[in-house]
């Protein structure tokens, strides 16, 4: 017997198939069978009247801290947070302890993800062994184990010769991307926030935007030489957005992402030394935000990614100088993007869905991000006008280091459906 699911009366937004209208979505055995007017009997029927029915959202940059820091987050708790946030696929970063730098570790992440039975859990392996920036990791074995790309995230690959070698070597594998946390450690020094007037009066060591821009500029030269697919993580400066714009114009195979905090917050937020605003790359300035928003409007930014980085309260309750970097925002990311991009009409709904589903799927080369016939039934149903207040105490994430606590946001997630199964429902939580 087949298992059937009907989502009726919803407003379907599926930019890949140019759908932006009221339609029913019918799935059989976890695959999309039809989007349209037909209304067959189904085992499970969801009435989505007044709701948006979207291809499942994808976040290609999360830290689930497993293995090594399970007190901060586990793949189980992170996955629960993901579906509560409307994400049907996430990509875990390899900066765990130990780092994900071999096939066994990749398989471990996949297994824990399957066990959690919430969101699809993908993983990027480390570019170099132990993320030390020296010896290439066994990329081939990790590709065979299902890694979707490689990054030393948490830090950038400092040595240009190593980075060149990584790009060259990885180019023999199909459907793989090399992803970089652009930061030149020499220029960043011991900085803990954006370098500028605020760091000067707060007496905190700054990270010059150049630290990010120099490495991006360097990498663009390496990409030109190798023509390897390259992804820029969490773009935070105006000049980086401009560099990417130029590189794309030139036709280089470069994609990039932006995190919600680099759209919503500036280094003014650091003025109370609240470590929930300590993040890397650091919060920059209004001018940077303006430029990045323009780049989103112009289609230069390929995807939005939360860079969900959970940390314990006891770690964040330290001096600004010593507390760890990171913001946990997976559960409210969608609401943040609506607030900062949809409400001020920088982009429209189909564009938002495109950069949250269709385009990230392409970056990690998975056959997802659309509601096309035969695709896996990963579906996010939201109430676009449904308001809610961010409450960190209700987070499924183990960590509460979220500066948006108490914010009023729109775009309540009603259902998150993965492979035709309801993995999150607002009513039941």
């Amino acid at each position, binding site marked *: 017997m087949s298992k059937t699911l009907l989502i009726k009366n919803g407003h379907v937004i599926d930019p890949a198939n140019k759908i932006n209208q009221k339609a029913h979505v019918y799935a059989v055995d976890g695959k999309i069978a039809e989007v349209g007017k037909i209304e067959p009997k189904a085992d499970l029927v969801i009435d989505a009247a007044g709701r948006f029915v979207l291809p499942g959202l994808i976040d290609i940059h999360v830290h689930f801290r497993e293995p090594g820091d399970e007190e901060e987050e586990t793949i189980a708790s992170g996955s629960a947070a993901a579906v509560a946030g409307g994400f049907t696929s996430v990509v875990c970063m390899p900066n765990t302890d130990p780092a994900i730098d071999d096939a066994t570790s990749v398989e471990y992440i996949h297994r824990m993800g399957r066990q959690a039975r919430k969101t699809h859990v993908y993983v990027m392996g480390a570019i170099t062994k132990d993320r030390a920036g020296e010896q290439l990791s066994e990329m081939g074995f990790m590709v065979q184990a299902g890694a979707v790309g490689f990054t030393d995230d948490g830090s950038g690959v400092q040595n240009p010769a190593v980075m060149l070698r990584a790009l060259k070597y990885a180019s023999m594998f199909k459907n793989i991307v090399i992803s970089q946390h652009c930061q030149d450690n020499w220029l960043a020094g011991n900085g803990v926030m954006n370098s*500028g*007037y605020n*760091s000067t*009066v707060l*007496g905190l060591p700054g990270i010059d935007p150049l630290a990010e821009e120099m490495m991006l500029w360097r990498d663009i030269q390496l990409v030109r030489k190798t023509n390897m697919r390259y992804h820029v993580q969490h773009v935070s400066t105006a000049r980086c957005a401009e560099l990417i714009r130029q590189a794309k114009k030139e036709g280089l195979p470069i994609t990039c992402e932006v995190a919600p905090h680099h759209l919503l917050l500036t280094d003014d937020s650091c003025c109370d*030394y609240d470590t929930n605003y300590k993040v890397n790359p650091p919060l920059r300035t209004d001018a940077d935000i303006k430029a990045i928003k323009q780049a989103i409007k112009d289609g230069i930014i390929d995807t939005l990614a939360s860079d969900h980085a959970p940390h314990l309260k*006891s770690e964040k309750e330290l*001096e*600004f100088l010593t507390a760890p970097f990171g913001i946990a925002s997976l559960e409210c990311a969608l609401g943040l993007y609506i607030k900062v991009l949809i409400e001020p009409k920088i982009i429209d709904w189909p564009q938002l869905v495109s950069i949250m589903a269709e385009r990230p799927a392409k970056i990690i080369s998975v056959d997802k991000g659309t509601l096309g016939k035969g695709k896996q039934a990963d579906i996010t149903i939201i109430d676009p006008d449904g308001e809610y207040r961010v409450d960190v105490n209700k987070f499924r994430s183990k960590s509460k280091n979220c500066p948006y606590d108490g914010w009023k946001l729109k775009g309540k997630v009603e259902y998150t459906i993965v492979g035709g199964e309801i993995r999150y429902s607002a009513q039941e939580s």
Partner: protein
Amino acid sequence: MKKKEFIWKRRHLLGLRGLSREEIEHILNTAKGFEEISTRSVKKAPTLRGKVIVNLFFEDSTRTRNSFTLAANRLSADVIEFTEKVSSTSKGETLLDTAKNLEAMGIDIVVIRHSAGGVPKFLSRNIDASVVNAGDGFCEHPTQGLLDVYTIRKIRGSLEGLKIAIVGDIAHSRVARSDIYAMTKLGAEVILVGPPTLMPAKVERLPVKISYSLDDVIGQLDVINMLRIQFERMGSNPFPSTKEYSHYFGLTVERMKKVKKDILVMHPGPINRGLEMESEVADGPNSVILQQVTNGLAVRMAVLFLVNQGAMLRQEIKDKRERLEGQ
């Protein structure tokens, strides 16, 4: 019209950036009143009797710490000395744990020095006692700023219109920042002098002028404050050698030939003799370095007195409110 009487309300002294000119002048005037105590044969007043002050120092200091201890003793407060060289981590006892433990002993004022900017502010948000910043990272050193302007005011009567240079490692100097705020609020014109590698980011947004040449500005100065080169705070060398630094930015006997006759030469101490300043200059007739130390005592007495007053005022208001609510 009758001038409204100024009432001091703050129970913390975290920095000078947020203080008004009136508040700074009030501290200086209060300090003036306390100067007399140090001239008595019995150098003590009962002002803070029964109050407990803890010197919570996470960074080496001799003069500031001793100055605070002596100031507290002169006002009859009990002083606990607490020194912790290691910085807190998530694994061990955190700074907050330490502070809460001290608070559990019933302290009234925490005098804190820490290598990380913002720690006094962080502490003030999390504990009930008054917090006095004795230097945090390269953020602020408010009592140093106050004693500097106190010293200048005492000799010159006012800072209005004076040209003051702060010379050296501005980027890593909490003294420079507190001085800038205090001096400019009191009407002085401040020129920062040093190599570009020792200037902080966006320094031009501060209400100051900037010069990379000491020789260009030295002839116009009423006051020159020579900062200590803090090797321990610098990562990679921001200048090629101490010899070259002294050549451009050291206060030498030779350079002193170009200054106004009555220039005041200041230094927050401890001096690297021969680096920022030649010994002949440090000990010369224009030097007010030891007067700074003396004045520091009166200023710190005033600060301890005032934050206690602020705390008492707050308590009074709280009690009154509770009484009213009880009715």
